[in-house]
């Protein structure tokens, strides 16, 4: 999501599931939605049936999506950037892009300062010692007097983004794409032609992607390519367009919105880092300033950051948060460096980490709620060895999972002997979705309340009760015994009617926020915007003086005085475009298509009158909830209100691995980089150096391997459900038929797949759906296997953990592991 945020301003699926039906072209790349999101995929089929839309599947494997696609293009795993930059080049070369849109809604006309350069696979600002870029080398050219951007509307300035992009992608000719990706040139050109057929006002195309893009060492830049392509084609903000990240868990979006990762607080506010010692420092650093004084000013919505933050602190610390004590800012834990997934387990395995130049302990205790790190994390061997170093582990789950029984993992996983593992493990029985109420946020940002159907089974408890009871018990200990930083524990507000099992409706009210004191209307002091105690209704009512409380500003509007909006269930859709404004609540502000201002031209008229996102009726914007000030005239603000410059970014100076994407090979590279052999993999990608972190070379492991989910299973959850294990009765490895023939492997026989980290065995599924690849003139093979097996499921469903073979390598922006491309060798077992 980092790439979408860097490009558009927010990191989430831009459009909605039903909206896919409005597309003329649906590009499925980096995802296999038919397999993983069948019920959402129906809207792609709907577009096919009702609008004759073209469905394109670009995938290393011929998948279930490919089976119903109009066009299938093979691609070598991990080379999507070359492919997409090839399409961008094709669009520019053939002028098949939406020029009016590009000039109006993107930073294509913006001039970049001359510090930016690119040479031999390295952007300017690279610090080889640290392995990092100095991003200030990629800044916009600023007019020092007016403090504004330098813009060339003709797109002809050689330093403008458009010309730089043109130059950057010039190397990605169809021949080069074939050389890198192994895709036959004719197939690539057919795909490019259909995709760019939407580069105009009349037609719209969408991109559906998922973890097939995310989980690479260059995953963020892959998604960036998709986002850039969509900007170039003018498809962002329009019904039927967008870059649609299809998320894999029922509430992965909600958990992220609610600070599911270390680097953010609820509502994508930044986790304070150690140098930001006061709230003032923090807010200054976090609130972007507007540089733009052009006709197209930006709303720069993030300028409201202090309101969001102070209201959050009021929610966190309640009465204890006062203006005098910076609203409790100092109690918030501050970070030094990286505490994400790979570091959790690396520091756990090492027992310590270096932070701000000092050695600090690593985790000796782990609490996991509904998550199975042994299955999920790459390099299972390291995972298990890391867990074995813990003093204590708490697993809250509905089923017994691999993590809970890591201490009796099969020998081949390389953990210490059971008797030597000193970890105390608690396994607490939790409750399923049907046994509790509350909201999930779907991929399209819809918050929907679900009602409880029955009580948890005897002996188990709801997760919120388990969490609350642990919290209260710890708090009680601090009350009684005190301890370092005891006030941080005691000051957190936990004012629920039933603190031991908070009512989720009450929590949702807190998330939405309310007025603590009366809030007078600044325009008319005799009136109140909100009276004390009233639920807030919109962002505009938030204050930065501590008079409002809000658990997550993004969700503002979900629980107002009118009630719980997430419970709304009206199937009415007057737009006919599948927006359903009266169904649940969609953040932000019940907006169904983000950046919808871009669906209209400079005068506020929709690019396509049959697919109106919003339009200007002379007084205000109508249609979807406008993603702009509702009464701001066309021309007043830019369409991308979260970006300070107000436009979508073709050139994004925000990411850690370059303002433009560039093709790099995976960390375990099957070939040298054709473009710049000296810089094969991304220069800023992260690897680890413990004894368990081993990486394979192409000479020893010549086959490219990828991992994926199956539609019959859900992660490591359904391995306990017999009716589903019946549908996919055993772990298998998909092998191209020609390769199988060469190796004498028969369909249904046993094979062994090994990476530098270990080997696993499975049943060979010999198929034509994987084909031989010609990469840079050489033959290259790809195989793959699904990830739903493990050692904790039903006896008939036990099998190897797919992640036994995956490497500890990751993207430098999101620190997401590279599950999708690694090297193996294949043998008969």
């Amino acid at each position, binding site marked *: 999501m980092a790439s979408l945020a860097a490009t558009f301003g927010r990191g989430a699926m831009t459009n909605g599931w039903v909206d896919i039906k409005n597309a003329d072209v649906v590009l499925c790349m980096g995802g296999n939605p*038919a*397999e993983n999101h*069948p*019920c959402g*995929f*129906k809207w792609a*089929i*709907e577009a*096919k*049936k009702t609008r*004759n839309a073209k469905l394109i599947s670009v995938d290393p494997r*011929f998948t*279930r*999506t*490919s*089976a*119903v696609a*109009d066009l*299938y293009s093979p691609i070598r795993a991990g080379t999507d950037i070359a492919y997409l930059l090839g399409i961008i080049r094709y669009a520019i070369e053939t002028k098949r892009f939406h020029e009016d849109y590009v000039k109006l809604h993107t930073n294509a006309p913006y001039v970049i300062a001359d510090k930016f350069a690119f040479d031999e696979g390295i952007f300017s600002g690279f610090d080889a010692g640290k392995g990092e870029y100095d991003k200030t080398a990629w800044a916009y050219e600023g007019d020092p007097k007016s403090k504004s951007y330098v813009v060339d509307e003709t797109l002809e300035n050689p330093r403008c983004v458009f010309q730089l992009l043109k130059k950057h992608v010039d190397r990605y000719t169809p021949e080069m794409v074939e050389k890198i990706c192994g895709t036959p040139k004719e197939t690539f050109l057919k795909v490019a032609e259909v995709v760019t057929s939407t580069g105009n006002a009349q037609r719209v195309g969408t991109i559906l992607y998922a973890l097939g893009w995310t989980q690479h060492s260059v995953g963020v830049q892959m998604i960036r390519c998709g986002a850039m392509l969509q900007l170039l084609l003018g498809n962002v903000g329009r019904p039927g367009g967008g870059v649609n990240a299809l998320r894999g868990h029922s509430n992965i979006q909600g958990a992220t919105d609610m600070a599911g990762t270390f680097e953010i607080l609820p509502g994508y506010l930044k986790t304070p880092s150690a140098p930001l010692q006061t709230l003032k420092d923090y807010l200054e650093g976090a609130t972007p300033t507007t540089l733009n004084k052009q006709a197209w000013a930006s709303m720069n919505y993030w300028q409201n950051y202090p309101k969001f933050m102070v209201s959050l602190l009021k929610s966190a610390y309640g009465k204890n948060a006062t203006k005098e004590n910076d609203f409790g800012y100092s109690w918030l834990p501050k970070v030094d460096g990286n505490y994400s997934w790979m570091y959790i387990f690396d520091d756990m395995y090492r027992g310590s980490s270096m932070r701000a130049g000092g050695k600090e302990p690593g985790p000796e205790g782990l609490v996991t709620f509904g998550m199975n790190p042994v299955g999920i994390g790459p390099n299972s061997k390291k995972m298990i060895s890391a867990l074995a170093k813990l003093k204590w582990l708490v697993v809250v789950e509905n089923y017994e999972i691999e993590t809970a029984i890591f201490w009796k993992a099969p020998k081949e996983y390389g953990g210490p002997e059971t008797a030597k593992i000193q970890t105390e493990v608690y396994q607490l029985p939790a409750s399923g979705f049907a046994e509790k109420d509350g909201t999930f946020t779907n991929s399209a940002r819809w918050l929907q309340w679900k009602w409880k159907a029955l009580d948890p089974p005897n002996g188990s408890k709801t997760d919120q009760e388990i969490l609350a009871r642990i919290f209260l018990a710890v708090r009680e200990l601090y009350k009684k015994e005190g301890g370092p930083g005891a006030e941080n524990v005691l000051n957190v507000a936990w004012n629920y009617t039933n603190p031991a099992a908070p009512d989720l409706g009450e929590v949702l009210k807190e998330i939405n926020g309310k007025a603590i004191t009366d809030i007078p209307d600044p325009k008319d002091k005799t009136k109140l915007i909100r009276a004390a105690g009233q639920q807030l209704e919109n962002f505009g009512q938030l204050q930065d003086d501590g008079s409002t409380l809000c658990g997550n500003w993004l969700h503002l509007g979900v629980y107002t005085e009118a009630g719980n909006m997430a419970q709304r269930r009206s199937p009415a859709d007057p737009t006919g475009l599948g927006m359903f404004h009266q169904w649940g609540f969609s953040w932000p502000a019940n907006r169904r298509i983000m950046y919808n201002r871009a669906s209209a031209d400079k005068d506020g008229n929709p690019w396509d009158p049959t697919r109106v996102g919003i339009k200007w009726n002379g007084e205000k914007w109508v249609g979807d909830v406008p993603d702009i000030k509702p009464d701001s005239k066309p021309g007043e603000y830019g369409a991308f209100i979260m970006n300070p410059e107000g436009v979508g970014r073709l050139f994004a100076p925000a990411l850690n691995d370059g303002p433009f994407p560039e093709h790099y090979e995976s960390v375990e590279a099957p070939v040298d980089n054709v473009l710049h052999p000296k810089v094969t993999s991304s220069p800023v990608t992260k690897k680890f150096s413990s004894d368990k972190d081993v990486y394979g070379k192409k000479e020893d492991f010549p086959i490219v391997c990828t991992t994926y989910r199956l*539609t*019959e299973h859900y992660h490591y959850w359904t391995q306990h459900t*017999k*009716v*589903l*294990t*019946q*549908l*996919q*009765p*055993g*772990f*298998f490895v998909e092998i191209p038929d020609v390769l199988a023939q060469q190796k004498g492997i028969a*369909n*249904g026989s046993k094979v062994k797949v090994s990476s530098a980290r270990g080997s696993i065995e499975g*049943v*060979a*599924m*010999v*198929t*034509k*759906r994987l*084909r031989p690849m010609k990469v840079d003139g050489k033959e290259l093979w790809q195989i793959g296997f699904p990830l739903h097996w493990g050692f904790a499921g039903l006896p008939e469903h036990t099998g190897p953990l797919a992640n036994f073979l995956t490497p500890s390598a990751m993207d430098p922006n999101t620190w997401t592991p590279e599950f999708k491309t690694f090297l193996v060798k294949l043998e008969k077992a």
Partner: protein
Amino acid sequence: MSVHSLEIRRSSASLLGGATGMRALPDVAKYVDTSTCIGCKACEVACQEWNDLAPVATHQVGTYQTLPTLDAGFWNLIRFDEREVDGGLKWLMRKDQCMHCAEPGCLEACPAPGAIVQYANGIVDVNPDNCIGCGYCETGCPFDVPRFSAKTGKMAKCTLCVDRVSVGLEPACIKACPTGCLHFGTKEDMVALGSARVAQLKANGFPQAALYDPQGVGGTGVVTVLGFGDHPEWYGLAANPHVPLGVKLWKNILRPIGLIAIFGALIGTVGHYFTYGKKEYREEA
């Protein structure tokens, strides 16, 4: 006596009977569009769930297909077929289940009165009360659908969710189908839907697309859109299915002739006795 919405149009092994025609019902049908099927198997398990069928034993043999063929506990199976056509790869998937023929071979073959019935809306159903598990329907079916259940000693197959349909709901498989490649309605509507889809496919790279509604069995209650209509066998469908000749011969020729012959033999003995009487020893004169 209960009054139900569904009369019986035909009943197996019944000399008499049939719908009164008092209430006219349109035929219903399932629509299966193989060109938009993703083989997700939602229909497979939706069927099992609705009908409370226990999971069956399966084995990984190197295919996505759950089972080689239908099973007494698995009435709905997606068949997968990988095939190269004109240099391009096709992964064909088709939902296999009872076709609910207008002229059902199973019903023809069934010797148990009322064990297989065809309701007034065209649904062909096995009535376990009357089924004797003889397996004749297995031979009678041109689509190899009915299966003998060792657990019940009866035959089992798709009921077209007659319990749902009779209260106004679509079958479970249809409802589940994520992509909408399955649809349910009157046969007339499904044929219209299918024809429109076939026309669309023909205009979009599938010149051989066709609607599979074989007339050899009087049409089926499952209307299937095939991208490669000239090759139904690629989808595991018979090119020209009909009630098996053997069953027809048995039922329509051999059985009546046999009855006449047996009674003829009986009558013959009586005639013989009347004519010639006993052959017995008489005292020699």
